[in-house]
């Protein structure tokens, strides 16, 4: 579920692979990413491959945000498709997460 990982300065940028982060795929994604996020304070999750996220996917994104926040850091999202944005707005999660259009914008926001 993790397509690519990249270090941009102090920031870990992770691209989520596949088109759906949902009841079917979110558990395995969380398993994979949990260790990678350990102790990280600057994380960007790139959602640009995703065309569908449901409540399970959202739950996992919240868990990732919580993990990084607990370490005193911040997790940002980028590359949300219009469907994913529609979900976030429906449940007002766009108030909880820092959301950017591009990876560049998200990583620059840490500087």
């Amino acid at each position: 579920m993790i397509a690519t990982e990249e270090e941009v300065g102090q920031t870990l940028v992770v691209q989520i692979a596949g088109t759906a982060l949902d009841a079917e795929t979110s558990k395995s994604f969380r398993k994979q990413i949990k260790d990678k996020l350990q102790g990280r304070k600057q994380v960007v999750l790139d959602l640009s491959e995703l065309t569908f996220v449901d409540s399970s996917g959202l739950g996992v994104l919240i868990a990732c945000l919580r993990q990084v926040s607990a370490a005193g850091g911040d997790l940002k999202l980028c590359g949300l498709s219009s469907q994913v944005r529609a979900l976030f707005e429906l449940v007002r999660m766009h108030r909880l997460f820092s959301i950017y259009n591009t990876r560049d914008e998200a990583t620059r926001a840490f500087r």
Partner: protein
Amino acid sequence: MHKAERAYRLSIPASLDKLSTLRHWLEETLRSHSSLGVSDEQVFHIQLAVQEAAVNVVRHSGFADTNQAIDVTVTIADQIVAIELLYEGVEFGGTAPPPDFDSPGEGGFGLFIISQAMDEVEYGRSTSSRNFIRLKKQLSTKEVDTHDRN
């Protein structure tokens, strides 16, 4: 005169890996139904609600195996989309309070999403062994045709 009602049906195995098939079929059905002016956001909302309902059926109905099916019917009449999921096993349903946005949990959004995305939601039991989840969405307010009035 009311526009004719049209029903579309799909049966999927009650399994999480089959839900993408259901989502794609839903989108195709909504977009290809002529005279239904459905927006992208409305398609997303309907897909989301049906996904959440179907996931709950798969997870909670106590299916011992994936030979169980979920029968989905989409009925479109005028600007109203009505969706029914029929399944056997333990009935799932209920209302959920909105999530606490100050300390959101990592789960429990499903029912809230359904109630936000759709205009009407109904859970029940239709026969001695089949349960239903009915979802309805009004796509646009439509003026009553003058010749509908008696």
